[in-house]
């Protein structure tokens, strides 16, 4: 499925996507997702070279608009933009107490006047990226909106799985933790389902959406059962504000029943791999020795794949915009 590596020095051609934005995994179809992963593969190789710079996005402006704090995702997009030669600007508007929608639209109008080409947005409200996409003229990439989606995370997770296991079709993945509030879970369920993986969702009942069984995933409230014979365990971050006895009794009870430790991991297939979108709550959702064991942990690889996937997405959306312009 993977493209053969291009000859050294020759840049592969960016795939053209149907959607002008990447707001949700639903903006992609299966073929597009697979081609996008193939394309990202080439950037993995590029990023490992001493000379990583391309001029694919030369003259283009990338704006990182992060209403929510994020070190990992923001720097990943920033590096991706810079390695492709784009001018990259980071903006971190303070979330104010006034109605978020209004602030967001004001920001959109202001930004639009600066003629960016790519807008990467993270916001605590679900649908914020969709709203922005309606108001600006450039390509919008959702870098996480509330409990809705985080499509580039799912793409990087898929790339990590594919490069590690050689395929996604038929791979059994358990997504464990706070599914209810996780945009990572939603995007991963959509993408991995599309690519033919077998998905399980594992969470305490209070952190599982009521309709999760209709998502094309098997639902488990018992981690031992949920991890039985899986190839990949994908842990989710537990938000600290959920830990005060409202949705789960305590962090120690959470770790006992839903924290990934060696005992629970032993239920999985031999050679199982562990993933986490970061940042981790060590001793809450994952035992440190599991997270840090290079034989099982793919957490470092996920970060590496993140930059490559984001380069692929930025280049593909830019190519589409150029095509659209040329067609006019």
């Amino acid at each position, binding site marked *: 499925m993977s493209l053969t590596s291009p000859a050294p020095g020759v840049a592969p051609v960016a795939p053209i996507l149907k959607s002008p934005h990447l707001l949700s995994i639903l903006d992609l179809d299966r073929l597009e997702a697979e081609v996008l992963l193939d394309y990202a593969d080439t950037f993995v190789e590029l990023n490992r070279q001493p000379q990583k710079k391309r001029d694919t996005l030369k003259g283009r402006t990338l704006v990182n608009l992060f209403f929510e704090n994020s070190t990992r995702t923001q720097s990943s997009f920033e590096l991706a933009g810079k390695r492709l030669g784009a001018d990259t600007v980071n903006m971190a508007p303070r979330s104010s107490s006034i109605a978020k929608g209004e602030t967001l639209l004001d920001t959109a109008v202001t930004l639009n006047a600066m003629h960016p080409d790519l807008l990467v947005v993270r916001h605590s409200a679900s649908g914020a990226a969709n709203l922005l996409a309606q108001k600006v003229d450039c390509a919008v990439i959702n870098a996480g909106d509330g409990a809705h989606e985080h499509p580039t995370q799912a793409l990087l997770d898929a790339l990590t799985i594919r490069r590690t296991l050689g395929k996604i079709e038929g791979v059994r993945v358990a997504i464990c933790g706070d599914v209810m509030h996780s945009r990572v879970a939603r995007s991963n369920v959509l993408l991995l389902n599309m690519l033919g993986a077998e998905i399980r969702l594992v969470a305490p009942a209070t952190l599982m959406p009521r309709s999760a069984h209709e998502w094309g995933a098997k639902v488990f409230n*018992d981690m031992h059962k949920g991890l039985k014979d899986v190839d990949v365990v994908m842990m989710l971050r537990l938000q600290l504000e959920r830990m005060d006895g409202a949705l789960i009794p305590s962090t120690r009870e959470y770790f006992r029943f839903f924290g990934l430790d060696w005992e629970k991991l032993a239920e999985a297939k031999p050679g199982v791999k562990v993933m986490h979108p970061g940042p981790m709550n060590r001793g809450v959702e994952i035992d440190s020795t599991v997270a840090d064991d290079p034989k099982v942990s793919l957490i470092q690889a996920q970060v590496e794949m993140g930059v490559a996937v984001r380069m692929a997405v930025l280049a593909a959306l830019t190519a589409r915009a150029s095509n659209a312009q040329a067609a006019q």
Partner: protein
Amino acid sequence: MSKTLFKNARIIDPATDADMRGDVLVEDEKIAAIGAKAAPAKISAEIDVVECNGLVLSPGLVDMRVVTGEPGAEHKETLGSASRSAAVGGVTSFVVMPDTHPVIDEATLVDFIKRRGRARGDVHIIPAGALTKGLEGKHMSELGLMKNAGAFLFTNGGRPITDARVMRRVMTYARGFDLLVMHRAEDPSLGQGVMNESDLSARLGLAGIPAEAETIMLQRDLALAALTGVRYVMDMASSAHSVDLLRAARQAGQTVGGTVSINHLLLNENDVGDYRTFAKLSPPLRGESDRQALVRAVAEGVIEYVVSGHIPQPAEDKRLPFSEAAFGSSGLEALLPGLLTLVQTEDLTLMQALRSVTSAPADLLGLWQGRLAIGAPADIILINPDRPFVFDADTMLSRSKNSALDGRRLQGRAELTMVSGKIVHRAAA
């Protein structure tokens, strides 16, 4: 090996609907043989033979609702004193409520109850865990860890959870662990009275608790139980309307049930009479038509579990003006005689009466107890259902001698109580 042979008994096993003449052989802690051929060919001297003379041999009672004062209020009742009271009452297992000081809301305390119960108890003492921390109705307690420590039932005791969102989350979380949730259905804001709200309470000048305090909360609980799919048991129904609500929910396929206390099956609000504080109960005794509906509900199996509602209160808390006196009645020694009285009056069959306190609660809790089966724990009682007596609360072994049934003529009691193959009580001839 210790062996006991019960000879010539009327064996009643509600788990299998069996009612037959025969013998039961107990070896060590378990039942080894039942029926006409249970007796060994040669009865050696080492076998303790109990001649039953046709009296009823039944599984020991499983009481799902007992409050003690241990830890924190040992002057009211300890696990030891409650268990001695239970043995006399034919109760061989009971669930102890988490309403103590401290509240049983974490695994170490569940473990404490289990160990202390084993060390001091003549009968099996089964811990229940608090649904919320400190029973405050705000933060979920560590239900999973308590389950692992040995809690069989989860309840907020005498303090209902008023916040519907907390209740929903607790039920949802409990369903994920397949826990059994028992809840007192009473809206405390409507329940701020001292007896049933009725013409009687108005005449007596006592603040009334309307039946709606119960049915409003029960309707909420049943709606949330349907939403979450949790196994739900209403804790101590008191009104006819509650029976209708439970029946409708069960007909709709919900896995819900209800308990009723023996007091509410035998007494009504008129027993408050001349400001009799022994009859001050929570939920309150209601009208005669409510009592009759509750008895019918037990007969029909709409309410499957009868409990003692054992809440020991020392004399100093009961010898007070009615409105100031404590709620509650010591019930462990009244449960079996009370039920046998309803059998005598032909309101219940012996099978119905015994099932509600043996196999039904045992099945609900997932206990091996509550049945006469080969291999089952030898928790057995011998009953003389034809022996009337006047119930005298002062003779109870409970530390608190308050009983709503004090002075009542009751019918039949446990002549002998065996727990795990050991005889822990024998009535005076």
